[in-house]
């Protein structure tokens, strides 16, 4: 793969056409630039040259034999002929061999219709085969994993899948075993091929050998209406193509070279298995299809939203604007969250708007880097983030950058992650000591002496100094961090760190905050924050707020999501709207949150799936959700893209219509929008940073929005980490990609990934507690307890208990109280 910054070019002739391409380009890609299609099987532009299938034979002048265009790097004044009789005959011969044992069962093959082997045979193949032997029969339809099926007869041994597993996924889980006639694609000892990215092999397989088990025989590809849209799971917002047949959901594919141009600025043409197979929720039996009141009576959408609006207004009239609140979700689109904050700020006059339980303010003191910037950086500093579980395709991007673009990766985390493997250096600090570690790093970058951290953070000053030296020695630094995993004042320290790195001489620095949720960046930008208006306008910026939002705009600081729950418990908060969130399970406190919500006079839950929270609601508004609703989302790199609907629901309005009608119910003068882009246009006028965003601008690749200004980075110094008492361990809640929640329910094809509750203990602590791997233990904090299986490992430093969130039933959040304070747990047998 040529480095992207390559500038040297060569000029050559392909089929009489003159081409100028960067040096090092292979002939296949060079031909593509002038519209000449050289057939390939084994070559894939993201995998690089290989040359095992021989499909791309071309004639190169002055070369005695035919050359494979996929491995032939072009040279100055080269003359390539793709259609000379010699080349045509050569390719015909290759195809005859390729088809020697291919079963030609195209009518029953799921790839039929989009199969490169079919297309290439049609265009370049011989009319008849000359072989008289019976075809070699091999295993058909063998499950390679619960979601991928392999048909060994159809395989042409192009090795795209095995090279993908080696080069892109970097697991080398899929390999060719045996040789010659007997060779076959296999995992180690035929174990299931269940990596996080296994589904991509279905997309890149140029024949029908690897197929999607969930799509098996569901339809033929010509039946499908394909919608190019976005994945709605994590914050990467990968581009996907959803295939729909007569308004029924059929399959998800990555938007990649096979169907249309991959969006390299976002996903590089790959998606994770959750994105591909985790779409059961769009047709789940657990969906909220109709609005209903607390008694369970079904309501028409218009009546329901009218009731919600008037009731909330009534509460504000009686108890003041501070008595209502809105808890949104990072899973909403920009339009939905924008309209909700408008409803609460303009119509109800409150700033009680939030979407998260961690601390984060809009804006960064440095540039907000796009995902593509990772490749061009000299160094990536990964802080407290576990991309493999939290934003999988980012994991692929980092691995690619490290392997092919010589990017140095430094990991700073309190747990062992898959990113330690590609990392040049990886430091593991004690759980809860991130503020201290970051402070020390800032000091080291400012060339101040670094205080001793061994006792509190488990890191030697020298390690911090080395890390600082690496940062100082790198020209372009990209900091990737997870704001949700930073406790205490670390959320301020990270901004201070960014400011410090950005302030170093001759330094380019940018950051990518990777918070959980599809649209966490967009939610912050849309003002789903108690202290910030859309576009990161702080409440102190009253003049600007007044010009944009009118003189009535509330300027009193609002309540955060957790404060709202507290006020609900104390009875001060009367009305609450919960949009696509499930506080009863996901918020710290667990059952106590349910108690608080029960005390509310009026709880409106706007969601697409039945949750523990919808059970408590006085009014449930049905949400169509991803798949059915149009809208834009802003990904972790600040890129705004359009999430097109792929399915149609005519019996229920989209969320943006529903919310705008709520606004109109209170203010008949409020605008009504023709389509979701109408709201987008209003966002571009009202939200600083989104000025350039409109329907045409975000077509195709999407468009980065301008990051909002950062509010003053607050003061220095971090309190020393709290000390444990009575041998209690500090709890770290980790993430697991395939958690068994409402989105991935028991019927999900990914259910084989579900894990049982596990607590990871360091060997030191385990020894002191007398616990061994496999023991059934209870993780206890106060009254709450969670049962788990113990695993003794080096996943975290001594003094901590790491528990991944694996399911809703696990009830893990019940252990957590105030997320800012340390959570101490006892491990009991």
């Amino acid at each position: 793969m040529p480095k992207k910054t390559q500038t040297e070019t060569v000029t050559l002739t392909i089929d009489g056409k003159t081409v100028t391409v960067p040096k090092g380009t292979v002939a296949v890609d060079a031909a593509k630039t002038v519209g000449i299609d050289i057939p390939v099987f084994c070559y894939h532009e993201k995998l690089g040259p290989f040359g095992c299938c021989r499909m791309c034979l071309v004639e190169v002048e002055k070369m005695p034999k035919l050359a494979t265009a996929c491995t032939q790097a072009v040279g100055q004044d080269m003359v390539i002929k793709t259609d000379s009789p010699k080349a045509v005959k050569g390719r015909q011969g290759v195809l005859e061999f390729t088809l020697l044992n291919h079963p030609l069962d195209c009518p029953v093959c799921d790839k039929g219709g989009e199969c490169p082997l079919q297309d290439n045979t049609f265009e370049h193949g011989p009319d008849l085969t000359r072989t008289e032997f019976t075809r070699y029969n091999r295993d058909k339809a063998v499950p390679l994993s619960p979601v991928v099926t392999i048909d060994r007869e159809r395989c042409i041994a192009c090795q795209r899948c095995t090279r993908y597993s080696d080069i892109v996924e970097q697991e080398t889980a899929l390999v060719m075993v045996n040789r010659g006639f007997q060779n076959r694609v296999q995992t180690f000892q035929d174990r299931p091929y269940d990596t996080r990215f296994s589904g991509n092999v279905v997309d890149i397989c140029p024949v029908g050998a690897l197929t999607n088990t969930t799509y098996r025989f569901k339809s033929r590809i010509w039946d499908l209406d394909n919608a190019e849209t976005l994945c709605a799971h994590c914050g990467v917002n990968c581009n996907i193509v959803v295939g729909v047949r007569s308004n029924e959901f059929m399959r998800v594919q990555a938007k990649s070279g096979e169907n249309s141009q991959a969006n390299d600025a976002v996903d590089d043409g790959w998606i994770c298995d959750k994105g591909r197979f985790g779409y059961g929720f769009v047709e789940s039996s657990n969906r909220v299809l109709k609005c209903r009141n607390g008694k369970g009576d079904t309501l028409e959408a218009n009546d329901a939203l009218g009731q919600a609006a008037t009731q909330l207004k009534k509460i504000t009239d009686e108890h003041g604007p501070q008595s209502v609140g809105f808890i949104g979700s990072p899973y909403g689109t920009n339009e939905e969250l924008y309209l909700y904050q408008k409803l609460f700020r303009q119509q109800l006059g409150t700033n009680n708007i939030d979407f998260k339980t961690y601390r984060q303010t809009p804006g960064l003191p440095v540039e907000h880097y796009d995902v593509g910037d990772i490749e061009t950086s000299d160094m990536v500093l990964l802080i407290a983030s576990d991309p493999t579980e939290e934003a999988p395709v980012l994991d692929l991007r980092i691995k690619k950058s490290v392997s092919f673009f010589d990017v140095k990766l430094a990991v700073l985390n309190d747990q062992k992650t898959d990113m330690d493997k590609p990392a040049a250096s990886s430091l593991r600090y004690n759980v809860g000591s991130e503020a201290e570690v970051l402070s020390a790093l800032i000091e080291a970058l400012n060339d101040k002496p670094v205080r001793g951290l061994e006792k509190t953070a488990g890191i030697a000053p020298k390690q911090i100094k080395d890390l600082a030296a690496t940062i100082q020695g790198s020209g372009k630094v990209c900091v990737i961090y997870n704001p949700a995993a930073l406790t205490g004042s670390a959320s301020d320290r990270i901004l201070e760190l960014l400011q410090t790195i950005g302030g170093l001489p001759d330094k380019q620095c940018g950051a990518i905050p990777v918070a959980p949720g599809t649209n966490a960046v967009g939610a912050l930008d849309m003002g789903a924050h108690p202290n910030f208006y859309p576009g990161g306008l702080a409440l102190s910026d009253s003049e600007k707020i007044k010009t944009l939002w009118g003189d009535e705009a509330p300027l009193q600081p609002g309540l955060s999501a957790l404060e709202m729950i507290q006020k609900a418990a104390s009875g001060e908060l009367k009305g609450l709207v919960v949009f696509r969130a499930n506080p009863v399970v996901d918020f710290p406190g667990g059952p106590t949150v349910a108690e608080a919500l029960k005390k509310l006079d009026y709880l409106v839950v706007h969601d697409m799936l039945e949750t523990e929270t919808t059970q408590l609601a006085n009014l449930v508004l049905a949400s169509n959700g991803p798949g059915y609703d149009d809208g834009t989302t802003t990904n972790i790199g600040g890129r705004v893209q359009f999430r097109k609907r792929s399915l149609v629901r005519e019996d229920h309005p989209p969320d943006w219509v529903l919310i705008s009608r709520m606004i109109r119910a209170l203010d008949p003068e409020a605008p009504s929008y023709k389509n979701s882009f109408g709201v987008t246009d209003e966002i571009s006028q009202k939200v600083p940073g989104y000025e350039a965003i409109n329907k045409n601008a975000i077509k195709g690749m999407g468009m980065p929005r301008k990051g909002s200004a950062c509010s003053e980075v607050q003061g220095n110094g971090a309190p020393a980490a709290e000390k444990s008492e009575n041998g209690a361990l500090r709890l770290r809640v980790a993430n697991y990609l395939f958690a068994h929640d409402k989105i991935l329910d028991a019927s999900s094809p990914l259910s084989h990934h579900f894990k049982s509750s596990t607590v990871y203990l360091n060997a030191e602590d385990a020894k002191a507690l007398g616990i061994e791997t496999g023991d059934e233990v209870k993780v206890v904090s106060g009254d709450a307890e969670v049962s788990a299986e113990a695993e003794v490992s080096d996943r975290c430093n001594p003094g901590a208990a790491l528990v991944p969130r694996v399911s809703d039933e696990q009830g893990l959040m019940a252990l957590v109280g105030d997320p800012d304070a340390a959570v101490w747990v006892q491990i009991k047998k």
Partner: protein
Amino acid sequence: MISQAFEGIKNLLVGLGVTFKNMLSQPATQCYPEVKREMPARYRGRHFLTRDEQGFENCVGCELCAINCPVSCIHVEAAENTEENRVSLGERYASRYEINLLRCIYCGYCEEACPEDAIILREHYELADYDRDVYVADKEALLVYPKPNEFRVNFLGNTTLKN
């Protein structure tokens, strides 16, 4: 003058010759519906789905008929054969197969496209009915293969299968 008269008489006799010839021959019209016409074997009438010698359906649900149909009157949904439920010999079979006989233009492209010779158009031409719903022929209706001209018209005028 004489030659002209001779020519006239000759023409008259030739013309009458045709008349007399037809007086003696069988009439071309048939007393339908009492008499049914034998259609040529390759006549494109109603569609049928075929079975093989073992009684398995030939159709594998590949939908090539549906994509080739110029009026999109065929709808197919496929499913996988299992050991317990084997419908066709291949991996898949058509779990749903419907043809809208009203929309169909009887062009025979589906027959042409079928890789398994599973769909055929035969000589059955009596397709009239009073009920439009009947015209969406499902698998059950298509898998029956009646011998030619075994339809009869009942007293309401509906075309039904004899016996």
